[in-house]
């Protein structure tokens, strides 16, 4: 079935089975590198995309449910030459090891802080309570997110 998706500011028309999880459309039909398959079960966060302002697990979101909502993936934020301030905070804190999980922490934090720029530490932890990093870069990631949050409210 033909569908039009708005991803990272551009429209894409794809021919897909409507039950297909959004993840496969993003990573295979559109060839995006940001959202990655980790578990396919909504348990890890590596497939995270922002859909209509909310961080969603694209592995468990049927593409048909996206409709006209704007989809943002990790590459939609910035580039290595012009990183988004949150990405810049991750670079400044060197908050990555293998880097596979990064869509989870970065986009979960971005969606939260866009909605609630004054999010508390507890809110941030809550937003990352379903996000896994098996390299355990936790401390640096939290530091980067707080740095970004403080920079915006300062």
């Amino acid at each position, binding site marked *: 079935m033909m569908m039009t998706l708005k991803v990272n500011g551009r429209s894409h028309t794809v021919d897909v089975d409507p039950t297909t999880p959004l993840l496969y459309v993003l990573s295979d039909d559109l060839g995006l590198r940001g959202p990655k398959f980790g*578990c396919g079960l909504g348990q890890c966060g590596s497939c995270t995309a922002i859909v209509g302002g909310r961080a969603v697990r694209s592995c468990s979101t049927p593409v048909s449910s996206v409709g006209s909502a704007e989809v943002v993936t990790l590459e939609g934020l910035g580039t290595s030459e012009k990183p988004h301030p949150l990405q810049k905070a991750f670079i400044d804190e060197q908050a990555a090891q293998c880097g596979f*999980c990064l869509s989870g922490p970065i986009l979960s934090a971005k969606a939260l802080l866009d909605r609630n720029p004054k999010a508390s530490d507890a809110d941030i932890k809550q937003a990352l309570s379903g996000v896994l990093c098996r*390299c355990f870069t936790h401390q640096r990631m939290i530091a980067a997110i707080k740095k970004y949050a403080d920079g915006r409210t300062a």
Partner: protein
Amino acid sequence: MKPARRTILKMTPDARAAFVNAGFTRRGFIKSSGALIVTFSAASLAARVGFAQGGPGGAPSGVPVDRLDSWIAIAADGRVTAYTGKCELGQGLFTAQAQLVAEELSIPLSRLTLLQCDTSITPDQGTTSGAQSHPTNFNAGGLALAAASAREALVKLAATRLNVPVEQLVAVDGVVRLTTDPSRSVGYGELVGGRKFEVAIDKNAKRKPSRDWTILGKPVPRLDIPGLVTAEAEFVHNVRVDGMLHGRVVRPPAVGATLISVDEASIAGMPGVVRVVVKNSFVGVVAEKPWQAIQAAGKLAVKWTPGTGLPNQRGSYEYLRTLPSRDTLVVDSGDVEAKLAGAASIIKATYLYPYQMHGSVGSSCAVADVRSDGITIYAASQNVHALRGTTAMVLGRVRDDVRVIFRRGSGCYGINGADTVAFDAALMSQAVGRPVRVQLARKDEMAWENYGLPFVIDQRVGVDASGTIVAWDYEAWSAARGGRPGGGNPGNVATGFVAGFQPGAFAPRTPSPAPTQFVADNNTAPAYVRGRVAGKDGGVGTVQSERALTHRVLSPFFTGPLRAPERLQNTFAHESFLDEIATHVKADPVEYRTRHLTDQRLKDVINAAARTAGWERRLSPKPVSRDRVLTGRGFASQACEVDNSYVAMAADVEVNPSTGAVVVKRLVIAADAGPISNPDGLKNQLEGGAFHGISRTLLEEVTWDDQKVTAVDWRTYHSIPVGGDIPHIEVVLINQPAGKAMGAGETSIVVVGAAIGNAIFDATGVRLREVPFTPERVKAAIAAARTLGTR
């Protein structure tokens, strides 16, 4: 278009990844280096550095490690390309190696491109693992020696060109110039640009002394992180080649189950299905799109024999003791029983460590293109050269037909599914004659990976009247099966096994022969014994009466190296036990450690961690308390493999006796891994290892029923999430500029289990000897102690 050519053109994304990873933008790269853009179509790159390049299978003759051209190439514009056989696994090695080459070659980092792990173009440096990359590439050999050789070769060429003796020349910033007259200089590009060195690696080439370092030893930000946080970096999961299909494996439903039949009609007419692939008990479905392959594999009707059955998980540790074993005596002074008999008192304890998994966040993925004229595999394997041979075996082809190209994967911490999924993709590509990408389902990754080994460890010591240890006896049982496939054992991992290969043979051996030289053998012997074998002390301790004996039995599950393999299990047992002894003899556990050690570097990290933590001398446990939350502190230390890094850790914990919940509040780590290549990179590794250790100590355990593994997702196998409780952490780095480089990726994790266990004991008076310290176990242990009135 011929297939060979096509696959070579597919090098373009990896070329891009290589220089994005190396910190260059694509535009900047093309502008600055016409020469190298050509080199990135692998064929000409290979030709330029001097190897024959066949089809996509490539490199029939391999990459000669003793030739300088195998390691370093210099383009006419002075840009340098270096080739390494050690890869980035998330540990920061790409950047550290780039620093090393730039330093030894005296070029700015921006002028370097580092290519890692491709069987056609990079030297075979074995497996990137075991905290061995620094020892291999940052001491007197490997990449360091190659770069130093290149610098000296350039200086010699310049001496001829400028007609002055080499002593009057110095290499600086990509040129060789007169020490006395900087205006007389010649650039590297001019000296060898575009040509080969045509010389052997000079074994006597001199490394730059660390006092002269300007790039190495500095906290250079990782070159790959900007590409990672913006999703520009290419993972193996992102590799897409023309005509690529998607495969999904169907693994047996139980351990030991074998295939009876597959009913292909059960998925007839499902959209996109291309082929059902069967080989012995290997079953896979290939489809046009990943979601189609997943759905079809889920519907495919497959009949299997029942599994062979699994031992009851309760009691499985005792069961290990009953199995035929392969025994290894690491050290035996011969007088342990006599010394124990004469001791003022004897202390005994048994420690249990479960199967744990690597549990990469991303399930493993590979892309294979198997053709009659050559085979290309993209894999996140830690050993591309070995995978080349085992892939050939699985496919019934020859090694020279295969080219394996490393692409970064999800952090692996040892052997995850990177090799096994390469076999999956290869088998399916061979069957359909087109490139196939396979990414494992979460449950297939978890149920069939090569777990870290379970251990049962019996410890006994005798102490004299002054409280000094006079004899130490260690005896352990552990279970293993398979492991790394290496160059010849594809059956060591799940796919090779179901496709018809057997794991490496298990040969029981009792009794063990006597040791002929001391081997650390993953810190089997505690740090506190002297490790005397054949008249030489191999250990770092004072205890003279010593025995360390291991029994390896056959595991029903595949096993393999998992971050700090066996060192972690052994250190948990040694460092928990040392704490028990200290309590028994009424000594402060830090002071008691140093009293039994000879090695100054180990003592130095112990003292540094104690000082930074504000360790106050006293006995454990703290007095009985009925507070709602109890607090305690614990300590642990280790000389990893005796001489491959030193670490000490102090942990502060909170324990809630009514829920059994343990929260680690603060960790102090002191580490010495020799000369520091990149202090922030080292810190990142030590922190990650420590948090990984907390998760493994408190939560992680592979579970099973009578047929199969039941830890198959993140609800049944637990990992502390990014939003979970993590402690404040302080890292003290001890630099040894003149020392030898040591591994550090596995250093901090070894001490975490004991540091936490010792802190729980300090807080509660309850000793936990079985990992993980789940709330249920902690709560039960405290309740039992209170009922008995011991607390």
